């Protein structure tokens, strides 16, 4: 059932109150322009009761009762008034005219019609004391026509509600955390179920295609489709967006109970309909086509969204592949190196043995030494060859251009984008709200731009925050200063300060020393790889120790780029 939001309820309430006020105002108008049966005080009293009754039942859903009371009030106002005058008789039609404002779910178009007729007949009878008059018939017909007009509107808004209903269910499903490769099959199920339940329209299958270069590509459908042949329908679709009961082939089965729709000139949906009656589905379609087209347009946006996600996934897989290849190259290299080292290791081993034997006093051993010398000389040649091979291999590995982990994709981004990326990393890592993150000069400078590789930046800060998590004690802080350049400061209380103080001092001195970057890389003083990555991105990084407050403070400066 459609859920009424708070806004809708307020609007309904307002229109309801307005309507009743209008009735009372019009009643007063009618009473002032003509003579009435009762004294003004009676009418005043009746109006008061009417208003009070309405206010009392306001919050409760006594819709039918309120309608009855409306008619009673109108009837009392029109009692013994001349119903041949337009401005009098129109009063009785007010509820009928107001019917579109009624709550959708509780609306019954014929209820008001019969109540109107009933009150009118009573009033006419009171005036003319004549039951059998042709007037009644004429009145019945005219009111009937008014009600018919109302009915059209009622049907249309009903249809609209049904569409919103289906949208609601689809949106609920999309928002839920179902992890599937595609959400379309389930959405098709929802559509089929809803159309059958609410509109008695049986759609047996929904198959979707994308139009591509004079051909059709199958998209996710409610059944698995591996083969299709549209025959003449293809040409027909160039001229028309809707086709009925065309002869097509799906999965080598012929089907001619279908509706084919072309949406946004790019997508085709084939709906398989009931085989029993060829005409009914067409009629059903024509009455619901507004909903159907809107739904299919929504489906198209979901299909396109999933396509974009898929493209991104393949790009990521391609990158992953590169990384995997690189790792595999490294592993093969270590295998290669172990083999090539053999002659080098043997050479030195044999050399030692040779000199031991040569310097012995045993003639036999000296003889063996001379034989060993031949082997040794040959091994020396092989060792030199191996050294060459190893050298070449290592150059290959060290060549950073081939290292996929080091590729940079620089792009111009706003400071605010960097803020959002790092803020999200922080709040996710430490499960906080983000309110504790300090920002300065955000309003004036957040639109400034810089050139970074966002992914690499994320990579760096994942590392930084992991260090914070590991080495901090309770207190940690993140600050952004949007000045000339973007300055990010990460600080935390040092765990076991006394114990780590000296080591940290050394680490900090080394880290900040830009003259020793290459040496630090080699020696891996903990944070050197962060320094290495930030250097690559031209981000200045430094660390400070606040000994008084036992704080470890890391500062990053990302320069503005116009």
């Amino acid at each position, binding site marked *: 059932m459609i859920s009424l939001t708070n806004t809708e309820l307020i609007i309904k309430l307002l229109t309801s109150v307005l309507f009743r006020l209008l009735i009372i105002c019009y009643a007063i108008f009618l009473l002032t322009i003509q003579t009435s049966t009762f004294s003004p005080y009676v009418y005043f009293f009746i109006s008061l009761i009417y208003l009070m009754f309405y206010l009392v039942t306001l919050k409760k859903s006594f819709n039918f009762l309120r309608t009855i009371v409306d008619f009673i009030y109108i009837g009392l106002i029109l009692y013994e008034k001349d119903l041949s005058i337009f401005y009098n008789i129109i009063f009785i039609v007010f509820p009928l005219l107001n019917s579109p404002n009624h709550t959708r779910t509780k609306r019954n178009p014929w209820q008001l019609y019969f109540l109107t007729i009933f009150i009118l007949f009573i009033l006419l009878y009171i005036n003319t004391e004549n039951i059998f008059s042709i007037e009644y018939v004429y009145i019945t017909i005219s009111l009937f026509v008014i009600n018919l007009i109302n009915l059209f509107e009622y049907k249309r808004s009903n249809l609209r509600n049904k569409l919103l209903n289906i949208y609601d269910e689809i949106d609920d499903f999309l928002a839920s955390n179902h992890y599937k490769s595609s959400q379309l099959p389930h959405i098709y199920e929802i559509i089929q179920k809803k159309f059958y339940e609410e509109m008695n329209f049986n759609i047996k299958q929904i198959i979707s295609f994308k139009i591509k270069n004079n051909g059709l590509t199958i998209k996710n459908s409610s059944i698995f489709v591996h083969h299709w042949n549209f025959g003449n329908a293809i040409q027909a679709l160039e001229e028309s967006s809707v086709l009925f009961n065309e002869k097509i082939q799906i999965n080598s089965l012929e089907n001619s109970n279908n509706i084919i729709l072309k949406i946004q000139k790019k997508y085709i949906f084939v709906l398989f309909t009931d085989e029993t009656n060829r005409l009914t589905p067409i009629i059903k379609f024509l009455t619901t086509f507004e909903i159907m087209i809107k739904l299919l347009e929504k489906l198209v946006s979901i299909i396109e969204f999933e396509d974009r996600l898929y493209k991104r996934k393949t790009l990521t897989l391609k990158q992953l592949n590169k990384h995997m290849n690189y790792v595999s190259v490294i592993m093969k290299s270590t295998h*290669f190196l*172990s083999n090539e080292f053999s*002659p080098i290791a*043997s050479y030195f081993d044999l050399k030692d043995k040779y000199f031991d034997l040569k310097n012995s006093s045993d003639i036999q051993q000296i003889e063996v030494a001379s034989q*060993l010398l031949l*082997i040794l000389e040959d*091994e020396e040649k092989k060792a030199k060859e191996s050294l060459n091979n190893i050298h070449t291999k290592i150059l290959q590995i060290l060549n950073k251009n081939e290292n996929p982990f080091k590729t940079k994709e620089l792009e111009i981004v706003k400071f605010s984008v960097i803020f959002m990326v790092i803020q999200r990393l922080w709040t996710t890592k430490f499960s906080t709200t983000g309110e504790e993150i300090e920002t300065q000069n955000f309003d004036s400078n957040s639109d400034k731009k810089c050139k970074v590789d966002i992914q690499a930046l994320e990579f760096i800060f994942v590392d930084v925050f992991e260090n914070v998590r590991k080495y901090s004690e309770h207190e940690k802080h993140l600050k952004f200063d949007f000045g000339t350049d973007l300055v990010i400061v990460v600080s935390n209380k040092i765990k076991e300060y006394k114990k780590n103080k000296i080591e940290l001092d050394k680490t900090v001195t080394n880290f900040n020393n830009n003259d020793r970057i290459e040496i630090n890389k080699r020696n891996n003083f903990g944070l050197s790889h962060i320094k290495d990555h930030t250097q690559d991105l031209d981000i200045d990084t430094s660390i400070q120790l606040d000994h008084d407050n036992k704080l470890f403070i890391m500062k990053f400066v990302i320069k503005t780029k116009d």
Partner: protein
Amino acid sequence: MEILILENQRKLIENAFKAINLLYFNNQLKINYAQTSQELGAIENIEKYKLIIIDIDLSINSKKDGIAIIKDISQYNEEELKKVFVLTGSTKVKDNLKILGFQNIPVLTKPINMEEVKNLMLKILNK
């Protein structure tokens, strides 16, 4: 005494084994090399060798790799596995052999440690 070394890159280890033969076996060993499983021929041929040293990674042209040859020997006569040890540059081989049930076959890694190789050879050949 004949020994067989199944190895793809003979020249990288040849001198080490020549030296071991000279220094510890009085040049008594006849060292045979094979780069492919085809060169081994019929599996019964292993009977004539007192020691078989296998590198898992053989020539591209080899129909079988070292692991497959070990499996063949095992199927032929499990006792023959006692004269086999593996010499390899790859670190994963020991685990692979364990998974296949060949945890008793000794595995030595390259680069060759002549002392280790010599000791193992003596152990097997003196049995």
